[in-house]
């Protein structure tokens, strides 16, 4: 049991699975010799050799498509995209092939690939390095979209993603790559990909979030507790396919929900969750489901990124608003 950061947990999960399953291979830009620009793959090349840890030429479409081809041959490729802002060239392959291979061939071939990318703002990165477009992947049938929010969940969910026989988009909130350490047992135990995680139980309101926004969400819950408001906090973790059950159960109890995400509001994953709750918990809801999100604009350059990002006070204010009803 060691205390590790989220990014170290990613590395641990990769190493565990590569050691235990020789069909697992890693590919991407700068993942081998350099160990990844965020060090997610550090040491893998030394341990598993250049045949299983591959620096690719600079071409995201190729990385995604090559992974599809490898996967069709029974390998389990874990492909890294350096930043989510550079994943779009790879989307064609993810949408048209990774997500469809099993369906298209009626199960003859499938695509057990993982597409990893760091995402989100708050680290003073240059433009194109700070966006949160998880909703684009969540809308694609055939893809699982998974977002860890702690070292333990990074470890367990990444193991599950690699072992999953279908394609998984694994998005890592880079703002919390090194924010905290947590004891993670390197025992190869995966976490389920079909369930939300309740991080904190509460009675008065359900706070729903994922990724780095859970930092503000949990801080808001703390603050609300002081104000005498008991907030349940749920980490959605697998944003697609969505575990609506857990969310509906919680809202049945609390009668109120606030969704917090960093992505733009319009058409974000919060919209699907809000729509599902409003439909499925219509009679339970004592107030509208409120979304606290990024603005509907391009992620600003870093001087103004805090203006864009949802803050603790925004979450608290939203809760106060729904509680008042």
């Amino acid at each position, binding site marked *: 049991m060691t205390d590790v950061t989220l990014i170290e947990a990613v590395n641990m999960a990769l190493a565990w699975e590569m050691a235990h399953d020789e069909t697992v291979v890693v590919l991407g830009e700068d993942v081998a010799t350099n160990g990844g620009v965020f060090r997610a793959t550090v040491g893998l090349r030394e341990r598993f050799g250049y045949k299983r840890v591959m620096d690719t030429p600079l*071409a995201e*479409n*190729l990385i995604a*498509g*090559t992974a599809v081809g490898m996967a*069709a041959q029974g*390998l389990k490729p874990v492909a890294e995209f350096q930043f989510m802002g550079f994943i779009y060239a790879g989307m064609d392959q993810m949408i048209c092939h990774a997500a469809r291979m099993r369906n298209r061939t009626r*199960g*003859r071939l499938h695509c057990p690939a993982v597409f990893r990318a760091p995402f989100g703002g708050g680290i003073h990165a240059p433009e194109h390095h700070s966006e949160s477009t998880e909703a684009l992947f969540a809308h694609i049938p055939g893809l699982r979209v998974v977002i860890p929010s702690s070292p333990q969940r990074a470890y367990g969910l990444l193991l599950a993603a690699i072992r999953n026989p279908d394609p998984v988009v694994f998005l890592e909130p880079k703002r919390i790559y090194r924010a905290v350490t947590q004891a993670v047992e390197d025992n190869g135990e995966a976490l389920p990909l*079909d369930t939300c995680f309740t991080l904190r139980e509460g009675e008065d309101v359900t706070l729903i979030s994922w990724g780095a926004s859970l930092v503000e969400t949990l801080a808001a819950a703390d603050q609300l507790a002081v104000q005498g408001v008991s907030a349940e906090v749920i980490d959605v973790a697998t944003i697609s396919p969505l575990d609506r059950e857990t969310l509906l159960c919680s809202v049945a109890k609390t009668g109120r929900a606030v969704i917090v995400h960093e992505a733009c509001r319009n058409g974000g994953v919060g919209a699907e969750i809000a729509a599902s709750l409003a439909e499925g918990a219509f009679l339970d809801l004592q107030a509208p489901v409120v979304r606290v999100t990024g603005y509907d604009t391009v992620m600003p350059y870093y001087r103004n990124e805090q203006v864009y990002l949802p803050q603790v006070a925004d979450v608290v204010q939203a809760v106060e608003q729904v509680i008042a009803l």
Partner: protein
Amino acid sequence: MKERYEFHVDSLRYLDEQGYALGDLPEVAEDTDRLLSAYANMVLARTFDTKVIALQRTGQCGTYPSVLGHEVIGTAIGQSMAKDDVLVPYYRDQAAQILRGVTLTELLLYWGGDERGSAWAHCPQDLPIAVPIATQCCHAVGVGTAFRIRGEHRAVVCCLGDGATSKGDFLESVNLAGAWHLPVVFVVNNNQWAISTPRSLQSACETIAQKAISGGLPGHVVDGNDYFAVTEALETALDRARHGKGATVIEAVTYRLGDHTTADDATRYRSAEELKHAWERDGVKRMQNYLHREGFWDAEREQALQADCKGLVETAVKAYLATQPEPPTAIIDYLFETLPAALQAQRDRLVAGAGGEQ
């Protein structure tokens, strides 16, 4: 830094347009059985083609891309590949696919709007037909990488059209195949047209084969209606691939004798004259001429072959038309290995027979 760097693309032709040998023929010419089955496959593909177009015209099949003019290339591919090689086809590779073991019924199901048309029993590792142009090139290098990683002596044949060579997917894949020394053979079916876009508007390059140079690969131009040339180029490239000598780009020059698909009307954008001229170079007829002249073929055999092919196609069509559509639940059951809980309610609706989700 050298003063000058030189590159080249060579070309291959063995037969003239009438099927006369232009010089010594390659080894394969000795293998009469192979030649005869090659010709038989070309005729089968062509017979099948005519039938599917007729089915489409009568509303019994969907939009379909004719193989007319591409039978030689596909046949040479199908014959040259080993069983455990992997074919990464595009949508005009019927002739190759038949030899790989895809049944005519499966092909019909595919173009008839039924996913089971890609659940090939006899070539389970071949990639499905790629509809988004050129995307399959990336899969091909992925498959080749898997072979390299596992140290297997297998090769990948990746097919694409001339239009597809303008798309980044092809060029990125050629580059990777070079950088990683992959056992991949790219076969560009240069049929002069990409729907209505002529080869001349597609690129200013003199040959398509020269695109290989961008990735440091050898490129060859072959006459795609010359069975010997295509076969020889393929055998050499496959041999290189299987022996760890890397990838090759083969440009097989032919002509799309039909419309782009049954949804297209080529008379809108190309001349009858050009088409007529192309028919004179038809590779199937050329092969027949050659076989005739060598004494391996005659009118009687031709008649028997035509009848055989018709029979095979009729049987396949019957099986196709008799195939009931999949149950509604099939639209969701193959998406994931196991149905996620989130989709259970939708599946229940499908079982209940409703259309659309609600």
